[in-house]
């Protein structure tokens, strides 16, 4: 790197990179700024700082209810999905077995299939089996999608584990269960936590699947916002969107800091 240091810099890529970063963040920043705009037309004209629209959002009973639904669904689906994904990762990481690629492809399926196809397939299934569209159907469907999201970081963490640790535990007469509980789980918990956080963000952000399977009275926040946006732009949507951004960004930052501290 030292001698050829200058050659590694490809001219223009630095400027291009900063332009792309600006492009990625510009819409988000504009949205956040406009959510504090006092103007009631939510046009691009700045009329002073105000948190008025947050108050309006908090006073909207339907919206508050949809936030409760979203959080309930995300918490339960994430808990189930993370446990199930951890078990699966324990089975697939650091070993080779016949059919491993097939198993991993199967586990990744929820992320590969376009969400609209998955959504209508699950809708048809619920209708046929007779599960009422509501909280239960939302939790079941969201659990499917949290599994692969949580699985990947947990497995990555397991892959990075020194195999000698588990071997040493076995040499010292630890049962597999003891070795799992005392050695492996304490070492991979940052991976589990970051997997769970990503799964939570994924569940909280889902629009398409929830749109098809949320019944009357069990609308999730994104579905509620989706219907609001289709009716027109309102400053309240800016405020709620900013809250959603803040939620996912803070969880993500937490997961990033965890990863940096423990790697």
């Amino acid at each position, binding site marked *: 790197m030292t001698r050829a240091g200058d*050659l590694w810099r*490809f001219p*223009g*890529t*630095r400027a*291009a*990179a900063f332009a*792309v970063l600006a*492009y*990625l963040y510009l*819409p*988000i920043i*504009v*949205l956040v700024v406009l959510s504090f705009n006092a103007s009631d037309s939510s*046009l*691009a*004209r700045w009329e002073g700082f105000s948190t008025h629209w947050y108050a309006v959002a908090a006073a909207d009973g339907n919206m508050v209810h949809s936030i409760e639904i979203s959080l309930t669904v995300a918490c339960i689906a994430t808990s189930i999905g993370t446990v199930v994904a951890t*078990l*699966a990762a*324990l*089975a*697939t990481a650091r070993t080779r*077995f016949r059919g491993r690629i097939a*198993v991993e492809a*199967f*586990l990744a*399926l*929820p992320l*590969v*299939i*376009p*969400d*609209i*196809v*998955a959504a*209508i*397939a699950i*809708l*048809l*299934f619920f209708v*046929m089996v007779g599960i009422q569209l509501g909280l239960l159907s939302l939790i079941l*469907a969201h659990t*499917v999608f949290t*599994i692969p999201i949580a*699985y990947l970081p947990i497995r990555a963490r397991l892959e990075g584990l020194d195999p000698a640790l588990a071997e040493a535990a076995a040499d010292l007469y630890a049962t597999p269960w003891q070795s799992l509980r005392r050695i492996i789980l304490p070492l991979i918990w940052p991976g589990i936590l970051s997997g769970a956080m990503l799964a939570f963000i994924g569940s909280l*952000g889902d629009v*398409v699947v929830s749109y*098809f399977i949320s019944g009357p009275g069990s609308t999730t926040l994104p579905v509620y*916002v*989706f219907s609001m*946006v289709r009716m027109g*732009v309102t400053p309240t949507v*800016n405020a709620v*969107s900013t809250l*959603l951004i803040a939620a*996912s*960004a803070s969880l*993500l*930052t937490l997961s990033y800091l965890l990863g*940096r501290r423990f790697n």
Partner: protein
Amino acid sequence: MSNVRQRAGLLTPAMAVIGVLLVLPLCLMAFVSTLERGPDGGVIWSRHTLDPYVQFLFERDLMDRLVLNTDYLQIFARSIGLATTTAVLTLVIAFPIALWMAFQPPQRRTFLLFVVTVPFWTNLLVRNYAWILLLRNGGVFDRLAQSTGLTHEPLNVLYSPLATGIGLVYSFLPFMILPIYVSLEKLDRRLIEAAFDLGANRWHALTRIILPLSMPGIVGGLILVFVPCLGAFVTPALLGGGKSLMIGSLIQQQFGQSRNWPFGAALAFVLLALIVFALVLHALRYRRLAGRLT
């Protein structure tokens, strides 16, 4: 033996959830696509017909003859075209930043990776909504263009295929940056050093060494962008308006206003088949590529 049983036990819950709640429903969807539509929506479970697939290609004229109807094919072609354009555009935008990121010091690399993933994990709906604020008449770009004297008429970008394209490129850009970055980061630096030692300039090192070796990442990125784009539903619904129908919105209509579930299932099945076809093509190509490299 106990090892195998243990592994099976650990894998069962995950595979059962996905099997029962996703794979089984997909099979059911294929089944529904061969059923007759019920008189008031829904389906008749006992009556089979291929009408949904016939409806995809033909319509009946006044004499009750089947005539070719390309309306739905056009919607599919338009969606495929838009997904392809989006994939190529994201590649052009993503490659320079991925290249730049890959050659940064390790500490900064992790940070940059984080910076790129934050928008990716931001709610898709919110990201698309933000573009409404930017693109609509009287919105940020419109005011900017008018106040700088660039134009005196409204921009009229929102609710057009162009807006859908902008939204799709924006939504899926991280899907392209990440795999390219990963393949560039893994790339054996000594190969590039060797190229420089042998008198290659930057352009040659880029086109002869870096680009070919990052092919797996590029192809992976193209697939990761193309597949969800093809079935995109939120972006066309919010930014595209109702004028240019895409596959996703067409499928949704069958479960909304049209209440034609078998046709909706058939459309979804055709979409799924298209994607499986693209993935198989990728797998075959990748195998050939891997064979050539080793």
